[in-house]
């Protein structure tokens, strides 16, 4: 199977409300940034383009068409789109490169969540006959999940606050983060519940923004002469939709994806985990089998800023950057999708 490398990544700052900036304007700076990292002029210089977005964030059918306008798809491009986080666009592009039909790919994801009420919008992702009519929003579902964890005795509210505290502290070194600061566990526990047992800090903020990445075969990366990181494994698994049909205190699909991606074939220096709620980081850390040797979410993770439809790709990008910068040799990136961690993607990156 062809060896694939990540060669460029960029993401926007996470902003609570970007105002009148539209989707094209969100995407273009990130595309320009990744072109510049590789020395490319345009999307025509890669063999394949794939993006991730969600129409319901924009409130219009065909949100991805804005992306095609941002690409400047003249002459026409080999282009595809997933109505998923762009981490799954990366997955599609990896398969495309493995077929031999492409040697390189541009990926991007974007979301402008601020105009809507994100938790309510995402409630319409649930089973349309039995669950969506309840308008069971994402925060409520996550609160139920957190309650099950607490009741099982496997975590405490202090453990959740510790996740938030570390996120805020790590984010102080991340200029793109939306929430950062030196906040201790005791102070966090003083906050009122947003939706018990979740406090506002336990929930990822709503952010507007975009991220982009370029991948290529290792041969193409060498031809370009840019630093690269090998993508040695990628896998994604879904599980049952109905929250009553699975153990919400575990993430079986993450375990399956991690095993298939070869996460534990060598030591891990860094992990970037897409956990929109503090307790989910604990579930995922356990499912990924991480120990003290692995630094988790040095960027602050999505609790410090959550670019819907791009945060998963950005986790891969964060690990890429840490390895390229020499801060780590091998790392794992995780992306999630669906209510209560229904669908999970795991990618393993290693220094060249």
């Amino acid at each position, binding site marked *: 199977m062809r060896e694939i490398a990540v060669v460029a990544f960029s993401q926007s700052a996470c902003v609570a409300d970007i105002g009148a900036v539209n989707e094209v304007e969100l995407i273009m700076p990130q595309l320009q940034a990744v072109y510049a990292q590789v020395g490319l002029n345009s999307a025509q210089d890669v063999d394949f383009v794939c993006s991730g977005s969600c129409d*319901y964030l*924009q409130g*219009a059918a065909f949100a*991805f068409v804005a992306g*095609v306008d941002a690409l400047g798809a003249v*002459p026409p491009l080999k282009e595809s789109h997933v109505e998923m986080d762009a981490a799954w666009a990366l997955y599609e592009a990896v398969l495309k490169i493995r077929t031999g039909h492409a040697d390189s790919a541009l990926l991007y994801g974007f979301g402008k969540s601020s105009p809507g009420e994100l938790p309510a919008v995402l409630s*319409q992702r649930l089973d*349309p006959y039995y669950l969506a009519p309840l308008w069971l929003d994402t925060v409520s579902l996550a609160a139920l999940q957190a309650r099950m964890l607490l009741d099982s005795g496997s975590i405490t509210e202090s453990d959740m606050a510790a996740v938030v505290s570390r996120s805020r502290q790590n984010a102080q070194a991340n200029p793109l983060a939306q929430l950062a600061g030196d906040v201790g566990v005791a102070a966090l526990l003083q906050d009122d519940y947003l939706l018990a047992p979740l406090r506002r800090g336990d929930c990822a903020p709503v952010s507007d923004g975009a991220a982009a990445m370029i991948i290529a075969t290792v041969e193409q990366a060498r031809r370009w002469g840019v630093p690269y990181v090998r993508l040695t494994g990628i896998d994604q698994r*879904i599980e049952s939709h109905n929250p009553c049909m699975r153990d919400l205190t575990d993430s079986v699909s993450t375990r399956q994806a991690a095993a298939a991606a070869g996460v534990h074939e060598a030591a891990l220096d860094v992990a970037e985990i897409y956990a929109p709620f503090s307790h989910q980081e604990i579930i995922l850390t356990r499912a990924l089998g991480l120990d003290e040797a692995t630094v988790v979410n040095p960027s602050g993770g999505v609790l410090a800023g959550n670019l819907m439809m791009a945060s998963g790709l950005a986790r891969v990008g964060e690990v890429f950057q840490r390895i390229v910068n020499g801060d780590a040799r091998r790392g794992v990136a995780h992306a999630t999708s669906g209510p209560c961690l229904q669908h999970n993607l795991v990618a393993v990156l290693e220094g060249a």
Partner: protein
Amino acid sequence: MAEWAAVVGIGQTRYKTRRSDVSIAGLLREAVDRALADAGVGFDDIDAVVIGKAPDMFEGVVMPESYLADALGASGKPMLRVHTAGSVGGSTAIVAASHVQSGTFKRVLTVTYEKQSESNAMWALSTPQPFSVHLNAGAGGYFAPIIREYIRRTNAPEGVGIRVAVKDRRHGARNPLAHLQLPDITEQEVRDSMMLWDPLRFLEACPSSDGACAMVIAAADSISGNKPPAWIRGVAMRSEPTMYAGRDEVSPQAGRDCAADVYAQAGVMDPRRDFDCAEVYVPFSWYEPMWLENLGFAPPGEGWKLTLDGATSLDDGGDIPWNCSGGVLSSNPIGASGMIRFAEAARQVRGDAGAHQVENARLALGHAYGGGAQFFSMWVVGAHKN
């Protein structure tokens, strides 16, 4: 370098206006169960699931792959949701094929659908957007001026669209799954139907359908079932912006590039001669002559002559029958329509197309387009690998 992949199972629902007897999941399962049975495999034999549909707003279910995972037996497996506008049915088949062609998986289930009766597509396409002119327009209103430009350029006679409308409905009458069953339709009936978007009359437009189409795509060492496989000889996708200076909306470059790419992969030199038939996305009658030219079956300006000569008609014994299944003009579950084209092309080369079979079909084109005729996906399937 790509591994060989083939269609080994095809399943479709009957297409109709309203399937109030089943849920969305139930609709998909009808197609999926038939595809699995056709391939002689069960859910345990499937390595990954690839799903596609047109905009989520068409049913009001956000990212429905989450909800559909159980019904599609996807639990514990990789799942991907493709969305590339009207071309999505074709794109989804191509992405599913890449799962096998990449050497990553042995057998993949792919399914596309639309349940238009649970929604209002016109509303979904007309939500007001900031800083944009608000349109309350369906696809017909968008494409009618482009068709008028085609007629102006080529001096095509007025009745060409009517001829296509009748031809595809007569083809559809051979296909028991087709939504519209109009075996006795006449040109006069089409001419007398209401003018919706001049020059498109009511009977020159596609219906609004509920339905799903599924396929099982397998690697060369995992062929199953009792029917011959349809070998995937080429796949291609192209996109261009909705608008740009100098854009040829009548014959988009993305379509021409996509065709050239897929023909080169399949060794097609002259599409009219080399293909035995084609399933091409024609939601409005005049798009047959337009795509005949865009896809190189006819020289520029002469697509309408093939239509009038009966070259694309199975009933007239044409040399290059188009849309023997009845095409989009006979059934249009939007998100599935592209995959139906791809699947019907495969049915032809498997010799399994029933009353709309083209005799000895060996090589067929499947085609889909979407957006403002800006997104294209195509594949070539053959009875043999070369």
